[in-house]
């Protein structure tokens, strides 16, 4: 049941990414190109998403002490606004502006069987593992072993 529901919610997510245009790097890059071929569509993606997610979340947190299929909510615990958050977000923004792909756009784009998507995703996974290696001190442990 949990796997089926996760598959279904992933499908809704992927369909939304495809229909909205977030799947398309050309469209993403045009959204950021204010001084050139500006395409404001992606602002509507965020508006549509928040128009559903804000009342939805409010209803959930007001009415339920636990989710339907799990014993508790798994919400991010971090609250500090620090250099890691801002530096990471800035680095992500630079990469997004270079490649036009973000994680949520690139995974559903695998459905289009395009080599560019694979090149981006492999590089992204390498970056994620590198950063997680720093986070978890794998490299230090590997060096000590």
């Amino acid at each position, binding site marked *: 049941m949990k*796997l089926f*529901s*996760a*598959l279904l*919610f*992933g*499908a*809704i*997510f992927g*369909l*939304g990414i*495809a*229909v*909205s245009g*977030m*799947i398309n*790097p*050309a469209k993403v*890059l045009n959204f950021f190109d204010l001084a050139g071929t500006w395409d404001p*569509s992606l602002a*509507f993606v965020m508006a*549509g*998403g*928040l128009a*559903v997610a804000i009342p*939805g979340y409010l209803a*959930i*947190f007001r009415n339920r002490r636990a989710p*339907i*299929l799990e014993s508790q909510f*798994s919400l*991010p615990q*971090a609250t500090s606004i620090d250099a*890691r*958050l801002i*530096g*990471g977000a800035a*680095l*992500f*923004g*630079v*990469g*997004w*502006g*270079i490649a*036009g*792909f973000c994680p949520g756009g690139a995974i*559903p784009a695998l*459905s*289009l069987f395009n080599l*560019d*998507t694979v*090149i981006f995703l*492999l590089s*992204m996974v390498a970056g*994620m*593992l*590198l950063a*997680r290696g720093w*986070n978890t001190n794998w490299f230090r442990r590997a060096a000590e072993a």
Partner: protein
Amino acid sequence: MTEFTPLLSLLGGALIGLSAVLLMAFHGRIAGMTGIMAGVLPPWSANWRWSTAFLLGSIVAPLVYRLAGGVIAFSVPVAAPGLIVGGIAVGIGVTLGAGCPSGHGICGLARFSPRSLVAVITFMIAAFVTVYVIRHIL
């Protein structure tokens, strides 16, 4: 040029928001692609099963949409070196920044997280500046 698609983008955004609400209601989880991808990468945790299911669903749905006759506009106006450099920057950035547009931009903002608001403002400014520099200065 890409076509301005306010209605389709609004509809697609609403679907992304619906996915986020359902995943929170049923699983108590944030529908952020960074966290969900981290679930299928080492060091593995118990999250890998539902994370894999969510990722598979997100790939299968556009496939079914196309098989049913739907058209998905897609083009990558970036050469391989840009995809590699951009990909590595995105991977490191979302891991350190603990989120991307889906996690911070939809889920985080929807639960009024100050961290997410700072992250969204930061990565949007960075992306606007980057595209301006690449397309109009370099």
